């Protein structure tokens, strides 16, 4: 069965066709990452989660964070629950790990700017 999806790896948004009955063969991609995306998206879709956490003593009330890699899409809201329970104190640095191995994904939650 040919599934059609739009690649979201880069802003090009290539229209992919993935043959789920033929080893998930991908066509319509303009780079290798598109092939990887096509397969992953139909077998175990993942997303990078970006949000903010509370910060004390910073120039703003919130400091932005991200998962340092894509986690299974189904864990997005669980991840948000963890993010919303966290708080830091300034100063913090870009890349600082705020929560290691989030939800057993081997991916860390990191701060995305100095504050």
């Amino acid at each position, binding site marked *: 069965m040919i599934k059609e*999806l*739009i*690649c*979201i*790896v*880069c*802003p090009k*948004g290539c*229209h992919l066709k993935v043959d789920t009955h033929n080893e998930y063969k991908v066509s319509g991609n303009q780079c290798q990452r598109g092939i990887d995306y096509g397969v992953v998206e139909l077998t175990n879709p993942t*997303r*990078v*989660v*970006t*949000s*903010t956490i*509370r910060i004390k003593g910073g*120039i*703003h*009330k*919130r400091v*932005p964070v*991200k998962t340092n890699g894509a986690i299974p*899409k189904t864990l*997005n*809201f669980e991840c*948000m629950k963890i993010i919303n329970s966290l708080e830091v104190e300034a100063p913090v640095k*870009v890349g600082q790990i705020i929560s290691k191995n989030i939800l057993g994904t081997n991916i860390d939650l990191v701060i*995305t*700017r*100095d504050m």
Partner: protein
Amino acid sequence: MKYDIVVIGGGPAGLAAAIEAHKTGVKNVLVIERDKELGGILQQCIHNGFGLHEFKEELTGPEYAQRFIEQLKEMGIDYKLDTMVLNMTKDKKIQTINSVDGFMEIEAKAIVLAMGCRERTRGAISIPGDRPAGIFTAGAAQRFINMEGYMVGKKVLILGSGDIGLIMARRMTLEGAEVKAVVELLPYSGGLTRNIVQCLDDYEIPLLLSHTIIDIKGKERVEEVTIAQVDERRKPIKGTERTFDVDTLLLSVGLIPENELTLKADIDLDQRTAGPIVNESMETSVSGIFACGNVVHVHDLVDFVSAESRRAGKNAAKLVLNQLNTEEEYLRIKAESGVRYTVPQKVRVGNVDRFLEVFFRVQDVYRDANLVIKSGNEKLLSIKKPHLAPGEMEKINIPLSMLEKAQDTEIRICIEKEGEVI
């Protein structure tokens, strides 16, 4: 106070321009920023997708900004925060104000305009109905949520399917709000396709194309928003009305380049972009005043802003160092048949290095078309373009050799399908 180059705006455009001016050999540079920190709009764009071209990495807005801010600081380039530019004259005198230095007059040999853009408001598009609280432009809501720490609402409707509207649909959903729908006037979305997937499809938020808002009800806070489908003339169709029970309405209905200062110096604007007309060096109609980034035309990718702004900074520096060819006649770049505008709008071929980077947008969605560059009766270049859309700015590098072949003092850029113009 005197500086060789003053950059107005410390966002991605201003930062890239200042750094490049410094690298080109002009060290006496000042960046003036009205906010309390550098980084511009990137500081509130906490989502990722930035830097794929520039750094070959996928960064969030703040991460992208920090790379440039660190470089600027390392180079020792002067900057002033919380400082508003009140006035700018043709002879490059700037008047500014802040609460530390007070009122200041600064003279510059060259200026780079990098003020970015502002959001179109409810009043500007005359949405009818009550005027309760709870109606925000999407960018204002983004700032409130991501930096000030306010949750702006719980039951949301979003008007406009441009990137800001789509990104906020996701943001609000992740923070626990219920986004009932994204409503779009046109029959297609103005945002990047990847955002439709990541922000709407992922959360099953409906995208209602060819619809608009016809009424808002609410005493002190928004209570109901009514939409209707529109016909080809964008007029509401009777009988298609739908009412949503919401407490918040976000408006993502367009960005407008911030050219108040530009007009004060009598600089010519391009009606199609709402930004200054610029040449190959990103110089405006006033000699020595350059411009780059969203103030010239609204961009989709910050990577393109950085590339464009480096050109502005480099050439502002070259002008100060007397290395810019200012004598030559202009070759006009004409946007035709399907191409809405190009930046730059004119070229002095003598200032082009190996190729000229031209940004442009198309009028409509085109599939399997060709981008064609002509001069006189000759077709100079034809490139296959499987997918072109108004919401996706395109770039083309025109080789110097091709520019030198141009006749009639103009080259024309247009869209063709199967050999015929659109």
